[in-house]
């Protein structure tokens, strides 16, 4: 084989690799474009809320006081559920939320790292001591869902779960001071 031909072949090889890289670039652009699109149009983000809260004095705070936990409907109709994730239990154990309306879940941990997901939904966040975790979502199906702690938090981790009752619009009725608790079934 003469010396000239290999150079031409080597350039052809690099040509095919560049073509392949261009194809890969197109695929990566497709992957990222749907992310950017839904972020711009529907506000889809990973849950982030850099709000500091001292875990050592959380039980003395106003927002995460024992009586203020659970779901409450504010004057402007916005629904917020405040939940404490503590070693080996969620307080309250059952959280009522409306179907088809924006809901904000605010969670805090007074001791170690916890994490939540609600089965079948996009609600998912880590609950890190030192911060208030916040998830804005909208539940699309009614029914009882499971909210386990999905991050290792100690020997009782497997027993740490709560129930989320997604109530149809009619059944979601706040009481006098705007609180909604689970229907006893």
């Amino acid at each position: 084989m003469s010396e000239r031909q290999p150079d031409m072949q080597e350039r052809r090889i690099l040509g095919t690799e560049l073509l392949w890289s261009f194809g890969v670039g197109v695929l990566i652009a497709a992957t990222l474009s749907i992310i950017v699109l839904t972020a711009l149009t529907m506000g889809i983000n990973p849950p982030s809320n850099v709000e500091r809260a001292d875990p050592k004095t959380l039980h003395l705070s106003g927002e995460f006081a024992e009586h203020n936990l659970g779901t409450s409907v504010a004057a402007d109709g916005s629904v917020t559920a405040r939940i404490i994730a503590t070693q080996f239990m969620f307080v309250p154990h059952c959280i009522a939320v409306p179907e088809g309306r924006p809901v904000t879940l605010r969670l805090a941990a007074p001791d170690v790292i916890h994490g939540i997901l609600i089965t079948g939904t996009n609600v998912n966040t880590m609950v890190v001591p030192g911060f208030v975790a916040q998830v804005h979502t909208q539940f699309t199906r009614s029914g009882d869902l499971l909210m386990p702690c999905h991050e290792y938090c100690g020997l009782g981790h497997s027993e740490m779960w709560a129930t989320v009752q997604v109530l149809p619009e009619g059944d979601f009725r706040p009481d006098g001071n705007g609180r909604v608790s689970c229907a006893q079934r």
Partner: protein
Amino acid sequence: MTDPRLSDPHVLDQPWRVWASVGVLGILLFGVLLGVLIIPVVQGRSAGIDAFTAICRALGILPGSPAQPQPASVSPPTPVSQVIWTPDVLQILARGNPERGRAKVVEVCVACHGEQGISVSPDYPNLNGQSGAAIYKQLHDYRTGSRVNQLMTDLAKALEEPMIADVAAYYAGQPKRNPNPATLGELPASIVRLVELGDPSRNIPPCAACHRPGSGGPIEAPILSEQGREYLAQQLRMYASGERRNDVYARMRVIAARLTPAEIDGLSRYYNAGFR
């Protein structure tokens, strides 16, 4: 054919240096532009949040999401216990002096809790080998009224913080009388399973997950081994009824309410026998 200029690797390098830097930094800039500027500002506009706030939220300088208003919350605190586990509280506990503690015990506590921590009546808890943090928390709750007991409230009010640490250190040092109990024989397997595995169906975590020393559970969780059987059953019943409510975030109240009387009795016997 080979051009000498090409043979020197550094000359070959020039395009690589340029293209690599342009490529990598270009991608990085594109990412920063999109992530920190374009997406937050566009999201903020649809949620009524001004551009500057949206960008600060995207960077984590302000709390909240660039795409959602931040819920407000105003409610008065209603703590069930004033104990705060700060480093200096832990420091005080660590410096607890058993000798000074013994002097105060002999003067005050011995009447009910005994010198070695073995209580004189089933209504009073045994304190031998109890964790210092557990003693500290209960005494602190008596002092602040989070826990009420006609005898203990006044006594606790009389103790200063360092003295609480000394008393706690003294009783913590008192040995367990029966460190390795012989057999589990007469205890039903369901009780042992409740202690070791808890009951996932009733959302009850294993007792050992918090109450076994070294479990990594809450600091103030008391050590239950060799505790009075009647005292344990009574406390569980008081938690279940809500009469005793100094457990932070109602953990014991919720668990006790789910236990059947047979389980309350079984657990009390399990721990009274000295198991951990």
